[in-house]
């Protein structure tokens, strides 16, 4: 509880690197943490867990209507039915963009984000401008990303206020008929699965 003196915010945030190192040292000396485990966790997010997982879910949904139906019904089960996507925990929810509705995901209270399918969130997703404006001025937020939608598009914002997690299934761009799953996955950006972007258009 906030019972100590917080008049000096600068000092609360200064020397953070040294303090992180000190805390890791204490926790290691006490045997609470194994530094090798820390190394592996950092490495997994830097090299293995990222938006490629989500991109494959979207690409598969674009080419396989049965998979798309399964993904929209229960995204966790659908993701775990594929061999080439890392395991996904409970209550992943896929929401589909249509010509009428564009979906945008935010967490106004903290920064809840579907790590397993998108990796760790970018700084902007965790920032005050995004968390404050997404629910009241989504078109302004989209314009910060250079995205303009047709005027009659309904924008649906999903505020991640519980332990459910959301991934947007964007619309498949024209001109990508007969593309392979891998080729399609390459145009499915992280931002288009949050709703702040659109898939890269076909060349």
């Amino acid at each position, binding site marked *: *509880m906030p019972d100590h003196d917080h008049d000096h915010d600068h000092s609360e945030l200064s020397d953070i690197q040294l303090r992180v190192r000190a805390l890791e040292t204490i926790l290691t000396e006490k045997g609470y943490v194994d530094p090798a485990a820390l190394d592996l966790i950092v490495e997994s997010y830097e090299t293995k867990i990222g938006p490629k997982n989500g991109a494959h879910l979207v690409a598969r949904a674009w080419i396989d209507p049965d998979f798309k139906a399964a993904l929209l019904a229960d995204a966790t089960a659908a993701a775990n039915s594929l061999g080439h996507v890392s395991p996904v925990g409970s209550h992943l929810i896929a929401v589909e963009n249509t010509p009428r509705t564009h979906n945008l995901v935010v967490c106004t209270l903290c920064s809840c984000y579907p790590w397993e399918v998108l990796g*760790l969130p970018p700084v902007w997703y965790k920032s005050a401008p995004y968390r404050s404006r997404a629910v009241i001025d989504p078109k302004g937020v989209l314009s910060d990303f250079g995205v303009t939608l047709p005027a009659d598009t309904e924008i649906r914002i999903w505020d991640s206020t519980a332990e459910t997690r959301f991934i947007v299934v964007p619309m498949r761009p024209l001109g990508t008929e007969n593309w392979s799953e891998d080729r399609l996955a390459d145009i499915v950006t992280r931002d288009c699965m949050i709703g702040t972007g659109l898939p890269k258009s076909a060349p």
Partner: protein
Amino acid sequence: MSNTIHDMGGMHGFGKVEPEPNEPVFHAAWEGRVHALQRVMGAIGLWTIDGGRASLETLPPQTYLAATYYQRWFLGLERRVVTHGLVGADELATGHSLHTPAPLTRKISAADAAKPPIRGNFERPATAFAHFKVGDRVRTRNLNPATHTRLPRYARDKEGVIEAIRGCHVYPDTAAIGQGDNPQWLYTVVFTGRELWGDDADPSIKVSIEAFEPYLIAV
């Protein structure tokens, strides 16, 4: 705490969203260490995910805003290890262990860490029938607890529609303060932009929250 700076939905004045091209996963090595420490220490099981969030919400607003995401995580973790008796304030001051460690019942090994992390499941067996069904109109309660809640201010005392039932889940409002899982039905409730933001709001927007049953009353 509930009415603190973390509850940002609808606030003005924070400026433009600034995406960073080719953003790295971590911007400095210490950020990765904080991320990993948070996971490993969380797995010990002394606090819940909601207790972790609640500890960040008790940061003074000026600290919360001045800190980056991983700085906040670090400040919260540093508080929790002390309040849960794992580390002494004197040890933080010296940067070394000075006392006998607390006994732990769970610990993440390097072998555990090598596996892909899978989110925990917060759904629990239902202890009662769900009060609402899809399509029901509901009003959110006007709740302002001094403790943790996941009902954002902008969505209090607002009328919406139940769009989906997500199962019966750990209730953050009690889990955060050590009062147990107390599972509650969880719903997706959708509101019009005008209900939330008034007659001048953009008519083309709808916003949903994930709302626990105690947040809702029938209309």
